[in-house]
């Protein structure tokens, strides 16, 4: 019974294992014959090892990773700062909101043709795309979170002698954290999806570009490796912010 209980947290892995076994079986038995080659999971794993050993995966992964890191960091920080300003000061909100409302719905990849012409195809292009992808949603979530803080907490803090700045930093921003983290969690995964798409279309290096090369060579095993890397990175990034959210807000939120 004790052993049973110890296993319970790990049971989430079981469906995954079954899925992988089915994949291996279906591919080996060649159930989808005549059409596209469907590599077994073991072949994908072997290719993953090869790509890692020869440095191809590492190099392309690093390109994508750095772009996401830089673009997302700058986009988040800018989004947070302007979101706080817009949430806190109604004048700034009234001034910027109409413009933000117009630009926000444009999907990040929609900016690609314009940015390609303005910035050319260099490292700044993917970083700019990720910046845009992160900036608007985080700004929106932050501003909403700030506005949603019950005004009575502000009154309480005022009655206890806090200045506007102190209220903002010690009460309003902490209470807006759940909303802020929601934005960060969602956009961290989205940043990876966007960078892959941008690299597939326009940029010669990175995981997305590797996928396109694999597509032109019909190397489905490499494509699947890239997809797994993408899924893993989305998962890790989202989990990271979930961890931070839990750390900072679980006890009281």
């Amino acid at each position: 019974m004790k052993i049973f209980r110890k296993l319970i947290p790990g049971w989430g892995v079981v469906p995954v294992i079954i899925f992988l076994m089915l994949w291996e079986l279906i591919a080996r038995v060649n159930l989808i014959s005549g059409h596209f080659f469907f590599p077994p999971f073991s072949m994908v794993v072997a290719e993953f090892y090869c790509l890692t050993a020869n440095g191809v995966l590492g190099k392309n992964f690093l390109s994508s990773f750095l772009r996401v890191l830089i673009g997302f960091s700058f986009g988040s920080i800018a989004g947070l700062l302007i979101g706080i300003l817009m949430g806190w000061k109604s004048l700034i909100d009234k001034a910027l909101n109409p413009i933000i409302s117009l630009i926000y719905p444009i999907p990040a990849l929609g900016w690609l043709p314009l940015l390609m012409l303005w910035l050319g195809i260099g490292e700044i292009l993917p970083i700019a795309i990720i910046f845009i992808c992160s900036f608007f949603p985080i700004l929106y979530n932050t501003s909403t979170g700030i506005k949603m803080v019950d005004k009575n907490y502000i009154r309480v803090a005022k009655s206890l002698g806090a200045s506007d700045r102190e209220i903002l930093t010690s009460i309003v921003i902490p209470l807006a954290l759940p909303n802020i983290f929601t934005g960060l969690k969602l956009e961290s995964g989205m940043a990876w999806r966007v960078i892959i798409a941008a690299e597939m279309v326009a940029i010669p290096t990175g995981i997305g570009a590797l996928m396109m090369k694999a597509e032109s060579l019909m190397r489905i095993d490499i494509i699947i490796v890239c997809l797994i890397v993408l899924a893993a990175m989305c998962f890790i990034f989202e989990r990271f912010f979930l961890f931070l959210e839990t750390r900072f807000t679980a006890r009281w939120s």
Partner: protein
Amino acid sequence: MKKLFIVFILLGILFFTFFGECFSEEEIPIGMAVEFMDHAASAYISHEKGWFEEEGLKLTSYESYVTGMALASALARGDIQVAYMCLIPAIHVYANAKVPIKIVAGTHKYGYGLVVNPDKIKSIKDLERKDIRIGCVREGGAVDVLFHKVIDKYELDKEKVLNNIQRMNPPKQILAIKMGKLDAAFLPEQWATIAENFGFKMLLMSQDVWPAMQGSVLVVKEELIRDHPEVVEKLVKISQKATDWINQNSQEAAEIVAQQLQEAGGSLFPVEIADIDTKTEITPEVLLRSMNRLEYTTDIDPMVVQETIEYVAQLGYIKSSFKAEDILDLRFLEE
């Protein structure tokens, strides 16, 4: 009641006449894919002259593809049993996508060239310069593999040259040349010749780099050979006939291919690119010049195929080399 009975009889006769006629010959569906290049001239000529129908071959589809890679994807995926495509994409289809195909004949040798802006590039070494922008198809394409041969042969700095490459398909490269956004382009024919219309000069041809390079080939799915070898025999025969005709009637061949490419291009491309290859650029004169740079022959040398396979494996485009006999089935050719 009697009248009704007679009507039924008449209908029945009509039915069997019509459908009986349809059922009289077993028709095998043949989906055909051809490259949008004068590499597939034999296909275009055969189609125009109705030689497929003459041999009783009913084409259920006849599609053009801008690049060999695009064609290869379609071959792997869809209802295409026959393809006129470059050798190297065919190798990828076989080795990477594991599609069961056989090469049953060649269509031509050579047919690729490096065109450059003569003001900016005087020699092959200039390709290494940082400010040079070189157009080339995506990795794995025939032109890309040839480009690697160029780098090897002329001992160019691989990293420098590859950094200068901008990957795009041939029509886009022509557009880019027109707009002054490329200084050099490695292109298959007819595109290389078209580029000369915009002031570019041919610096290298495939003959200079890779003697006896196999250009395009006639590819069929294994199941077609297995189930209908007579169809494959007819296809090879038609290809041979068309190839001989091209060599004997180069002027007329150029006119036919130009017209066929214009028709196909009108539906393939968006407006601004259609302009390039339709009425304005793909003229019989251009095609004649281009086709003279190819050697149209159905002969195919297994050793050259083997050499190609090994080189592609060396470049890492396929996981490992394999025997040329595994992909070749030249018995229809020898007959």
